[in-house]
Structure formats: structure tokens, C-alpha cells
């Protein structure tokens, strides 16, 4: 079977849904951040697919932008998590919620 655009898009969708499910299901804030990275990777694949489909490198530029965003998100997210951990001694979102109430 020849690999078509749809195949790639479905793959991206699968990855995105996996990430999304993980984000909802997991309670560990670090793992949740990793799930966000997974979702971002899925969007990157979609960008690459359409760049390929339209023979337009613009998609690649936006992937680069996404990389920057992912890196920034990871850096700030993890910095916040470390700070939260220092104060609350947990990165479990349930516990954090309980502490806030």
C-alpha cells in the first residue's frame, strides 16, 4: 500500500490523541508537561505534511517556531515546577489542588 498524506495525518492525530489522553490522565506535572511536548510534536508532523503537500517550506519555518516554543515551554514549565516543588514538596497536581483550596 502506498503511503499517502492521509497516513501521515492519521499518524499525527494518533500521536496528538495519545498526548492529550496522557495530559488528562496523568497526575504527575512533569509527565503532563511531557505529554504537551508529545502534542506539539504531533502538530509539527502536520506542518511537515502540509509543507510537503504544497511544496512550501513555510511549514518548516513554523516547525522551527514550534521547537522554540516547545523549548521555552519546557524551560519555563520545569522552572515553575521546581519552584513549586520547593515550596509544596510535590508535583502531583491533585495534591497541589488540595493545597490551594
Amino acid at each position, binding site marked *: 500500500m502506498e503511503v499517502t498524506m492521509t497516513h501521515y495525518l492519521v499518524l499525527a*492525530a494518533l500521536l496528538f490523541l495519545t498526548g492529550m489522553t496522557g495530559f488528562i490522565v496523568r*497526575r504527575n506535572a512533569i509527565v503532563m508537561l511531557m505529554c504537551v511536548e*508529545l502534542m506539539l510534536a504531533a502538530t509539527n508532523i502536520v506542518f511537515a505534511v502540509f509543507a510537503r503537500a504544497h511544496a512550501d517550506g513555510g511549514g518548516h519555518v513554523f516547525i522551527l517556531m514550534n521547537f522554540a516554543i516547545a523549548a521555552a515551554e519546557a524551560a519555563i514549565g520545569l522552572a515553575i515546577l521546581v519552584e513549586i516543588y520547593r515550596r509544596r514538596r510535590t508535583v502531583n497536581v491533585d495534591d497541589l489542588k488540595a493545597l490551594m483550596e
Partner: protein
Amino acid sequence: METFLFWFCGAAMVLGGLMTVVQRSAVVSAVWLIFAFVAAAGIFALLHAPFVAILQVLVYAGAIMVLFLFVIMMLQGPVLEGERRRMKPALWPAVAIPPLAVLVLVGTRIADHGTAAFTTPLPAGFGSPTHVAELLLGRYLLAFELISIALLVAIIGALAIGKEERKLPWK
């Protein structure tokens, strides 16, 4: 060849993603995520985006995930325990239904309309660093600037949050 690589990388990527979500230990999750990212780099390569593929490895596997692993190891104790509580079984359908629904919708759509192949022929040097660089510093200069601003903001933000480095003047 391309078909084989697609199925291989795709399967690896989805497996990596699933294991990331399923594994209880954060470190193991992170390692599976790296696996997924490397597989994703393969997908990028198949999509004629070599520059992006290598950046994917360099940035994600080489830098972002090292940061993740670092933080996980720093915050050892509670993170190591993994998830303590399971989600209430009653909520499982609520989580599972939307993705399944999406998949079913996509499935019917494909069944109805078939698959769409890539049609546009690619120019030579598509996706090479030169190509991307020309776009980045030409048509998408704004995006380029936004990237730099985003990174700058991230640096400043991370510094501001983490600046209270603990100096212990014991002596």
C-alpha cells in the same frame, strides 16, 4: 522502502507515545518519549524535511529531554513513586470516548473519500538548511523574530523563576 520506513517509524512513534503515557515511573516515561521523538525524526525525514528531522533530535533528544531527565532526577523522592492514585474507573469512558470518537470520524471519512496522495512535485533542495534559512530570513522574517523573542522571554522567565539560587554562607 518508504512504505516500510513509514510503518516502522510510525509504529515506533505511537508505541513511544503510548508508553510515555502508560509508564508509572517518570524516568521511564521520559526515555520512551525520547524514543518517540527519534522516531518522529524519522517521519520528518520521510516527509522531505531533513533539516527539521535533525533539529528534532538535536533539540528534543539532546536538550529538552535532558532538561526533563535532569529535573526528574533532581526532584527524586516523590516523583520516583510514580502515580499513587489511579483514576476512578467511572471516569475512564469520559477520557476514552473523545479520542475514540475522533478516530471513528476520521476512519469513516477515509472510508468515504479514500486517501489523498501527495501531488505537488518538490523543488530540488526542499527542506535543506539553505531552503529553510532563505525562507526564515526572507518571507518569514517576522516568525524568525518571534522565535528570538519567545526564546528571550523564556530565558528571562526561567532566570526570574529560578534566580533564587541558594547560596549557603556557612563559612
